[in-house]
């Protein structure tokens, strides 16, 4: 392994970004750390969690198939979020950097700042992505869009390896021409018009560029961040005037779904009982279900094949 000083930053960057793409990132780039430090508030700069950080790598993973954008929204909510795929790549990338270049690296936690509450992230991953040139601010709140890859989820990797930074995108794909047309007609873009909680508003200038973006993040959070519904639900149950209302607050289908999601999120699926299958002969005694039997069978098969080949080889001799 080469010393850090001997590593070609450009080649290292190509290797790292190449790793990310091989593992499934649609796009990756390096953000300008100095610029992050100037824009991000104190406590939320990369060095606030990694003191000797030299580079911030941002990567984006795809959202959806074309078909998925047309499914019923309540179904999309189950598979619309793909950020975990990005986090997996970032996690692997941190190991890749350490293994390949011997420089320390971390997968930047995408989590919330426990000190400031759940609406404040530890690090602004979208700022990293924007500065790395893999997305630009849209009219849809804090969502970034890319001209080629559209809507993505982002992850970041911090490393002590110095890498040459990229620049932000030259052009912002938002608003799209059709959105400008719509805005000219009704004063709103599709994202503004169809938002279920009407949390978006804004203006487009005479050149078809973003002029003002207004985003009611609190309203958006009411819609999307169901964790906030949990205490709200409990408070509603505590304040309920009668047992029926209390039971409804805790057990109506929507809230029960929330409990379900919490349980799944905690790794405790409700259906984790296998007693019927533990006593089922088909499940437990299926010949190939047992890995040891599978291996033995495989060995037997190989042995039989070998014997068969040997026998075939013997035949001409016998004929002679």
């Amino acid at each position, binding site marked *: 392994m080469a010393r850090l000083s001997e590593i070609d930053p450009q080649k290292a960057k190509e290797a790292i970004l190449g790793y990310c793409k091989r593992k499934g990132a649609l796009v990756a780039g390096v953000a300008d750390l100095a610029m992050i430090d100037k*824009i991000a508030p104190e406590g939320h700069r990369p060095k606030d969690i990694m003191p000797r950080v030299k580079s911030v790598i941002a990567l984006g993973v795809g959202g959806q198939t074309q078909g998925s954008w047309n499914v019923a*929204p309540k179904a999309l909510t189950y598979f619309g979020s793909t950020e975990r795929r990005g986090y997996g790549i970032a996690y692997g990338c941190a190991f890749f950097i350490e293994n390949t270049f011997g420089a320390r690296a971390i997968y930047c936690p995408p989590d919330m700042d426990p000190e400031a509450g759940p609406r404040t992230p530890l690090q602004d991953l979208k700022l990293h992505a924007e500065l790395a040139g893999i997305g630009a601010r849209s009219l849809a709140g804090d969502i970034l869009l890319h001209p080629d890859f559209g809507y993505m989820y982002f992850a970041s990797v911090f490393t002590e390896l110095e890498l040459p930074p990229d620049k932000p995108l030259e052009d912002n794909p938002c608003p799209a021409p059709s959105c400008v047309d719509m805005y000219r007609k009704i004063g709103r873009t599709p994202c503004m018009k169809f938002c279920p909680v009407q949390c978006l508003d804004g203006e487009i200038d005479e050149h078809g560029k973003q002029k*003002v*973006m207004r985003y009611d993040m609190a309203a958006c959070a009411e819609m999307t961040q169901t964790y906030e*519904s949990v205490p709200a639900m409990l408070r509603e149950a505590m304040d309920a005037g009668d047992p029926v209302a209390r039971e409804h607050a805790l057990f109506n289908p929507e809230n029960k779904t929330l409990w379900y999601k919490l349980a799944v999120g905690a790794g405790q699926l409700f259906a984790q009982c296998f007693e019927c299958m533990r006593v089922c002969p088909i499940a437990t005694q299926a010949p190939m279900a047992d890995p040891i039997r599978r291996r033995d069978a495989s060995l037997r098969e190989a042995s039989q094949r070998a014997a068969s080949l040997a026998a075939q080889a013997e035949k001409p001799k016998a004929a002679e």
Partner: protein
Amino acid sequence: MTAPDRTRTGVSEEMIAVYGDRIWDLSTNMQVRVGDPVRMLDLAEIARQKPGMGMADYEIARLIGLTTEQVRAIRTTLERRRFHSGHYRRLFEIGPGQRFRQDRYVPDNERFQFRPEALALRHSLNFDPRNAGRYLKEGLWTGDTVSGWLAKWAGKSPDRAAIRWPGGALTYAETLDKAQRFATALLDLGIQKGDVVAIQLANVPEFAIAYFGVTMIGGVLSPLHMPYRAGEMAPLLNHASARAAICAAASESYDAPATFLSLKGQVPTLEHAIVVGNAPDGTLSFDALVGSTKPRAIDNPPVAADPAVLCFTSGTSSEPKAVVHTYQTMLSNNRLCAPVYGLHAEDVLLAGPPFTHGFGICMINYILSVGGANLLMAQFTPPVLIELLERHKPTVFYCAPAHVAACWKGGLFDGRAFPSVRVAIISGSPCAPEIADALAAVLPNAKVGQMWGMTEMFMGLITTNDHSREIRHNTLGGASPGTEVRLTREDGALAPDGEDGEIEVRGCSVFAGYFNNAAANRIAFAGDGWFKTGDLARRRPDATYQITGRVKDIINRGGIKINPIDIEALIDRHPAVLQSAIAPVPDPVLGEKACLFVVPKPGKSLTLAEATDYLAKNGIAKMRWPERLEIIDAMPVTPTRKIVKRDLTRRLSK
């Protein structure tokens, strides 16, 4: 929970009130960005826009002169307090390929809610869960609704007649259209699912349209008997919390619109009087509502478990006996009984009972269940009935003994026959065999049978075409499909065959209990879902039933119980008698005595001695003879032409 934090930070409610909004706007909860400064790396512009784009707590703190902890405490408090849960469900209404439309979204607090009165009505549907579970499991209760049936037939056979009357007909498509118009008009008037709409109309097309319209929106139709006037109706309308009432235009004998307008002052919930025909000021015209309203889709249609009708039986004015039927109890009876007689879509039903009675409603549903036509008889007179039978050729005929008796004894059956009728059922009150014989004589293609039912359960005992003539003319047959019948003695034990007992019924069409009348319910139910009907019957060895009287009609003469029904039947056959009834009269010594009431045939007369001689000759024991005779012009009868004996007794006390 927040007290320790506040002790440490010094945050007060006053501080939240003073600084809260500004902190909220400066935080990332509300974000405003001008242009694209980050992408442009315009640090000066980023700094300038910081308050709009969202600041960290410490930045806000510096800007407005609080500590970071204070800003954080206030911000998170407001985030909690301003949080509205439940927005997530907005997604539920967006189908695949659809987008959220704010202009079409109705917030939760603006959505439908049952009124308290409607909820109270629903509480009365407390069926025995074990029995109800069985009806559901066995498919006796289904998802059928009246509007569902109407829509089905309007779709399958739009041009087939649904309603016929001497002046015209309405096809299923036309009936559905008019019902939808009326339903929409009701919604526009503020009538909503669960509301009770009263109706006092004869068997006219508008009754059926109103019934279909009211039930289409999930309303509950409450029919009021035609003879009722304000004094009788006020307590009933109040008991039902009726929101609207539908009535006929004023006639010479009765100004219904004025009556209902006056009732608005006595019934707080009553908002609208809807008049079929000439609608005076203050009322709404049924025709105008139907004619001018464009039908629209019903957002919240009824389901089979919803209450559909609320019918009043007897009871006192302070505690009316209100029978609530769901679509499940009401329609299961029709659905299960129609195949017994092979009813089909080509059938034309002529029903004698008024629609303002449960039996009448039952008949509307009965023919609707097979998509046939309902031939209406607006008002019964013997010539009108004969005209309908002769000219309009019904195939199914349900009537009361009184209908038959009036035609037969009036000589209108003489020389006539009505071959179109293939099913003929007599019901409504005990039927003498000769009445059935008389009807059978003019219906060459029908097997005349009998049915016994009640508003509380519709058709309970029925004869079938498989029964012999003797059974069909002399008994009520056996239990209808989905119904269990038993006879009990006074002590609750089962009465053996051949002995009188009170009819108790249980089944999928039996109501759950009288609405808001606990006293009546305590008496009416024997437990396990058995409803005590108050009718007396006897079971024959062939498992058919014969009505033998009413529990209430038993006369207690010094401890000896006299059931007068067979004596009445005998007296009815006396050559001088048109109609008779025996009712108790108070007696200071014996408690009660029997009084014979007679309506003589024109030009005839009868004395008590002649009556008792006649009974003696026919083998009636002296201890059962009536001890008083009253000659009257006409019997007081119910809308289904049952004699109201309590009115006879009351007449004597006057």
